[in-house]
């Protein structure tokens, strides 16, 4: 169906109902529309595991798409499916996380770096010593274990920083908030909080219980970015983890389809850190803040050089033909 240079692109994603992933899917749609090269998007977007994603990928192969952009449920678990896709002549691009299938192209946020950057900044803010409350993502998720590596790397650089408590939020707001409040109630002293992206509820919890506002590291979610400029006395940093990487994935896929292969298989989008401790950081935050976005959406809705849609387009969340 690649008539007149137009393509059908298949998309596979395995987490539904999460702001980050929703933004990713919208970025894919918006980029497909903005590129003008895509006739149809074929989206498999549901809550499932690696085996389910294999099913989706194979269905996309049956649908004879030209390229598949996939946010892998697991780097190794969908290898077989991606291999079959490549064999069927389909361009495969993995976004957000790496995959082990060598024929696939990867454009990914660097999760290990994400954690390292934030944790390092946090430990510096804490003066290189003290106790940190380590709020991880979902136990057993591969992105979580990648971030854990980065966090541990930073921790190793600051021998006087100790983990006061480690919890898994499951990337769920309510659970994270309850954990924070329970932790506060124990009266354990702590000097900083590192979160795996469930951030604004943590600030809320600190403010509501009138606990001392220790430095908090989170992601560039709209809610948290807003708090960094509005909550008095809050020192913190947002590490970018753009959901718009999905749009970049579509761009990469289209480039390959058009015969412009990138020099290397893997493109890593490096995270940035926006903090509110310095004037320079504050300015960056102010520029990035976007109260009109849903608080769960990352504010970095575009990636320079990789995405060409407008804000209206991504917010409208409409793909070609919709």
């Amino acid at each position, binding site marked *: 169906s690649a008539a007149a240079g137009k393509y059908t692109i298949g998309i596979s994603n395995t987490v539904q109902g999460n702001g980050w992933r929703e933004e990713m899917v919208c970025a894919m749609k918006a980029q497909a529309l903005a590129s003008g090269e895509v006739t149809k998007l074929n989206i498999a977007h*549901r809550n499932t595991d690696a085996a389910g994603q294999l*099913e989706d990928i194979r269905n996309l192969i049956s649908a*004879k798409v030209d390229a598949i952009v996939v946010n892998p449920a697991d780097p*190794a678990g969908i*290898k077989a499916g991606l291999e079959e896709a490549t064999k069927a002549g389909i361009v495969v691009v993995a976004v957000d996380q790496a995959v082990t299938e060598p024929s696939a192209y990867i454009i990914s946020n660097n999760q290990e770096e994400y954690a390292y950057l934030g944790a390092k900044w946090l430990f510096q803010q804490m003066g290189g010593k003290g106790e940190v409350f380590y709020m991880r993502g979902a136990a057993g998720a591969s992105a979580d274990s990648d971030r854990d590596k980065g966090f541990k790397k930073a921790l190793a650089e600051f021998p006087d920083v100790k983990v006061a408590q480690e919890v898994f939020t499951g990337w769920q707001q309510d659970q994270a908030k309850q954990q924070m409040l329970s932790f506060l109630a124990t009266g354990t002293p702590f000097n900083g909080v590192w979160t795996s992206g469930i951030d604004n509820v943590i600030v809320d919890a600190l403010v509501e219980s009138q606990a001392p506002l220790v430095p908090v590291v989170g992601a560039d979610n709209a809610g948290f970015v807003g708090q960094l400029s509005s909550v008095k006395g809050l020192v913190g940093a947002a590490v970018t983890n753009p959901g718009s990487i999905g749009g970049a994935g579509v761009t990469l896929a289209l480039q390959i389809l058009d015969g412009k292969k990138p020099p290397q298989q893997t493109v890593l989008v490096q995270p940035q850190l926006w903090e509110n401790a310095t004037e320079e950081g504050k300015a960056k935050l102010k520029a990035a803040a976007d109260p009109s976005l849903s608080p769960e959406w990352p504010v970095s809705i575009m990636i320079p050089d990789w995405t060409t849609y407008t804000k209206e387009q991504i917010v409208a969340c409409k793909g070609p033909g919709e």
Partner: protein
Amino acid sequence: MNHFLRRQGWVIGLFALLVALFILTKLIQPGYGSGDFGSLARAVLPYAFAVAAQTVVVIAGGIDLSVAAMMALTSVTAASMMAGASEEYALFVVPFVLAMGFVLGALNGLLIVVTRVPDIVVTLAMLFVLQGAALLVLGAPGGGAAEWLKALISGTVPIPGLPDAVDAWLPKALLVLIFCLCVIWIPLRRSRLGLSIYAIGSSELAAFRSGVPVKRTRILAYALSGLFAAFGGLALTMSTGIGAPIPGPYLLASVAAVVLGGVALGGGKGGLLGPIIAVFVLRLVRTDLTLLAIDPNVTAIIEGLIMVAVVMFGAFITMRGRQQ
């Protein structure tokens, strides 16, 4: 013949629905062929085992909420044991993991019998326990699987005496599924134990009075459920090549397919064929939704509607039947 029709009516109807769906699929995607059918069979595999696990306990008058967690645990166990190990070692891993599923399933049953806590609560608690155990085995997705295991469910085998065109429609995954289920289910169904499972689900009191060892049968039903779940866990490892400690969407899917398959949630009625066909129907619906490039958010609505509509339709038929 009359009895057969009355008893198997639902299954026949479901099969007709499946055939209709295949025709629809062919219309949507004229290129839909044997390879795609192979993909379907592989997608069905873990669901089919999950639903078999659920079916056994539902027939015995219970319910098992720990199916998906059991699959996760057996899957990570298999994957972590096979990681970096030799191909032959897997010959030991497979029976070990199956035995583990059997024993843990029996534990489910034992707890229900001993504590007299309702099955739904015991298996809910076990869901957490098994999930925790899976996390202890593997903190993050990983591990490996022997190549021969992975090969076991991909592609087709040439069956002597059958033309290739037919062979191609008999993917290995389907044969594995049929083999595993038949080896356990058919002898079971014919055995005294199988009858006893139906009996305790139909009427525990009458079963007890007919001399059925109710407690032992209940424990064995859960053990069998654990065994099927272990098959499901292995199927996950075989298809993905890894083990993931977070349970997949198999619990709710298994309950839905059991009901769609004509097994009453009160126990004592139905068989395994219906739920398995129901799994094929549900997976094929998903394939069609993907082929049609339906808005993914609408697919959730459609899947929910199908489930509710089919079950309501079934209820409607039974109601009509009762009135006449």
